[in-house]
């Protein structure tokens, strides 16, 4: 009598412990997909692409002051992104990417202050495209994760 009661009790205890372990054991090593981060990066990329097309037409002219509002807007976007990224757990890769993107926009601005030539634009575009592609690729991978 005692044995027939003891066995199911043990089994129930085992299953309960396993249940608790497995149900709480979905591992998270990196932050989840964040739609706002993804959207902001994509919007920045579009904005930058448009400005680079305009700059290609204006190459050779001393026009930094005309584009200063663009750099101010980008800095505000980067700050917003950075604050959000820092608020999300396990998000160090994205935090580092935002800091690196910020550094790249600083470089672009410094080049612009020295007057952009026709030769500067493809290099700037390539560097920034590679940066944006890298960021979007990671966001998409997070979105499509199992």
């Amino acid at each position, binding site marked *: 009598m005692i044995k027939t009661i003891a066995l199911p009790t043990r089994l129930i205890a085992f299953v309960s412990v396993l249940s608790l372990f497995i149900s709480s054991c979905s591992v998270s090593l990196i932050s989840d997909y964040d739609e706002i981060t993804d959207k902001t990066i994509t919007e920045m990329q579009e904005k930058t692409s448009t400005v680079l097309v305009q700059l290609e037409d204006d190459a050779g002219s001393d026009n930094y002051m005309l584009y200063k509002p663009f750099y101010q807007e980008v800095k505000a976007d980067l700050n917003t992104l950075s604050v959000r990224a820092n608020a999300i757990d396990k998000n160090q890769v994205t935090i580092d990417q935002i800091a*690196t993107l910020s550094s790249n926009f600083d470089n672009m601005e410094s*080049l612009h202050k*020295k007057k952009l030539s026709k030769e500067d634009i493809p290099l700037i575009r390539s560097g*920034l495209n590679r940066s944006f592609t890298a960021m979007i*690729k990671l966001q998409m991978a997070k979105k499509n*994760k199992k």
Partner: protein
Amino acid sequence: MENIDINKLLQDMLATAKGEFNNYWKEVKPYAETEFKSFIENLILIEKLKIEGKMTEEKALLHIDMQKNSMRMVFLTIEGLGILAVQNAINSVIDVIRTTVNTALGWTIL
């Protein structure tokens, strides 16, 4: 820069990256290869423009810094993809345990 063997440099870069990202290299190799190639081509173009006098040294250094930053961005993404791959593998194993236990018990408990 004209004397540099671009293909050899690319292969060296890929070999180094493979060593660093060994476990998930197969998945990220096509992406890394494209980006490394673009990085090398841009460095060669910067040097060419500087030699031809179409770019000042100051500007060349800013461009090189931009290219280095964008490469850093690529490495960060590869690192992130690797973390995601490990996470997916662990969670897939947990799913197998969950399915096996539920099937063995005959009802969904996990």
